[in-house]
């Protein structure tokens, strides 16, 4: 049965100026959306608007421009509060990106963790979600436990439940794997972790572009993402944290804005959210991110998910017709990401040829070496679709892929 997705693809494509670009003489086909999404004109306009009309530092000036900029910045916070259904706007902290958000939380737990405490992470993690915990463990003497994956690339939940015990203090999983696109059962993971009073941080960088997140329904303690994957500009991250946890962890960076009183003996910290937003933030970026999330919501994430799923199913079907092609990651619930290899051809070779055809893909380890080690491969080619991609683009990609295979075999 054909789904009625109601996406006006021509109109949507018109919103993204970059889609009209030629690359290597060919029309750009952008299939690297999992790395960053493209930016609609109105988000670009909002950045120009900010610098043309009300560029000024926020939260300090009594003057008109500063108040206007502060209002727009704080308005963006409220937009994300509503989008994620957080109780309070101050539970939304703006950072420079997902990596910054994760490091902020990891740093916050330095004083809370003790020797032999345990942190559970998954084998599906992005490097940015492994290294901060390793650093944390080096400093605190805590230990990392890893949730293994099965041959389909899914987390083995039974194994996760076996890892939980009274020493488990933190659980870190991604909502969706960046390398395979598999949607993890985070609601269940959160529920089980809470039975042992463990705190859960979810990396939502690969989930937020495709689905609506409700932090209250999930009962998640921390949820992080980057707005450049949801039509915003680069350099802005979101950290949602439950108020009680945000109050418990210390500031990450010291500086202006995050303090209340400063004497040379002792400074007292400002309340939420300023405690975590030291220095002048990325004001134009935060405001533009708010415009980006409004744009995404104006189309509707449900429609986006349904349309992207159509693209995913179509591309998967077409790809599987190619002899020797292997897709990594199978699950009933996947986002529009396909990681694959063709026979013994190196992913780099295929990626280079596709690039010559104007097709942007990602090749290599995808910042997820543990997954590649599991499958014993040097890397994969990853294509990831967004709601502005089309079946016609997938057809062009399949044609180019056939040519690449012919050249490389």
């Amino acid at each position: 049965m054909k789904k009625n997705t109601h996406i006006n693809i021509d109109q949507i494509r018109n919103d993204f100026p970059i889609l009209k670009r030629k690359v290597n003489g060919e029309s750009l086909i952008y299939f690297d959306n999992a790395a960053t999404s493209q930016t609609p004109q109105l988000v670009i306009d909002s950045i120009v608007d900010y610098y043309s009309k009300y560029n000024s530092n926020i939260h300090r000036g009594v003057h008109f421009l500063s108040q206007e900029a502060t209002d727009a910045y704080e308005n963006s916070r409220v937009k994300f509060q509503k989008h994620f259904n957080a109780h309070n706007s101050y539970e939304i902290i703006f950072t420079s990106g997902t990596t910054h958000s994760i490091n902020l939380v990891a740093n916050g737990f330095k004083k809370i963790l003790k020797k032999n405490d345990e942190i559970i992470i998954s084998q599906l993690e992005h490097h940015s979600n492994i290294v901060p915990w390793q650093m944390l463990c080096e400093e605190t003497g805590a230990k990392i436990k890893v949730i293994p994956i099965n041959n389909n690339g899914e987390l083995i939940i039974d194994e996760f439940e076996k890892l939980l015990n009274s020493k488990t203090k933190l659980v870190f999983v991604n909502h969706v794997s960046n390398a395979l696109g598999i949607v993890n059962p985070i609601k269940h993971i959160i529920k089980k972790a809470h039975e042992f009073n463990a705190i859960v941080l979810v990396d939502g960088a690969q989930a937020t572009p495709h689905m609506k997140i409700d932090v209250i329904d999930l009962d998640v303690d921390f949820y992080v993402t980057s707005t450049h994957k949801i039509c915003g500009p680069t350099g802005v991250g979101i950290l949602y944290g439950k108020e009680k946890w945000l109050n418990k962890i210390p500031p990450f960076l010291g500086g202006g804005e995050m303090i209340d009183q400063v004497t040379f003996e002792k400074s007292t910290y400002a309340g939420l959210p300023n405690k975590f937003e030291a220095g002048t933030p990325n004001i134009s970026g935060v405001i533009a991110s708010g415009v980006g999330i409004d744009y995404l919501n104006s189309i509707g994430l449900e429609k986006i998910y349904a349309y992207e799923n159509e693209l995913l199913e179509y591309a998967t079907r077409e790809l599987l017709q190619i002899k020797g092609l292997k897709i990594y990651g199978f699950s009933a619930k996947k986002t529009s990401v396909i990681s694959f290899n063709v026979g013994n051809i190196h992913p780099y070779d295929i990626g280079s040829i596709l690039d010559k055809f104007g097709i942007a893909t990602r090749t290599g380890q995808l910042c997820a070496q543990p997954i590649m080690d599991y499958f014993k491969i040097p890397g994969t080619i990853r294509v990831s679709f967004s709601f502005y991609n089309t079946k016609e683009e997938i057809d062009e990609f399949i044609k180019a892929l056939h040519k690449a295979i012919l050249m490389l075999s």
Partner: protein
Amino acid sequence: MKIKQIQEEIIDEFAMFDDWMQRYEYMIDLGKSLPLIESKYKTDDYLVNGCQSKVWVRAELVDNQIVFKADSDAIISKGIIAILIRVFSHHEPNEIIEANTDFVDKIGLKDHLSPNRANGLSSMIKQLKLYALAYQTKINDE
């Protein structure tokens, strides 16, 4: 033949092709004639850093000339290193160190020079020149 002459020879060969696809096919063919590094040297010690695919290179000094051998697990990288070795192998270290490498631009490989290219052509050139520099230092010391 001097390095410069070999480079001109390669530029002429690539000029015969009308489009990138033919150039890539030719480059892939050149990879098949690459003097292969012995498999015992295909270890991390001989890997070129900064490559998405694996590229191993080893150099020996034979009659005061450097002889390079290499291999790669990716076909395009193998073609690229084969071209570089055809240019740089069997020359005295000083000639290699001083050689200009503008020719890569002229044969349509400029996009492999970007710092983003995980299989940086520039890393390979740097590695070959480092070998030359090491041997030149050794010769000067003797």
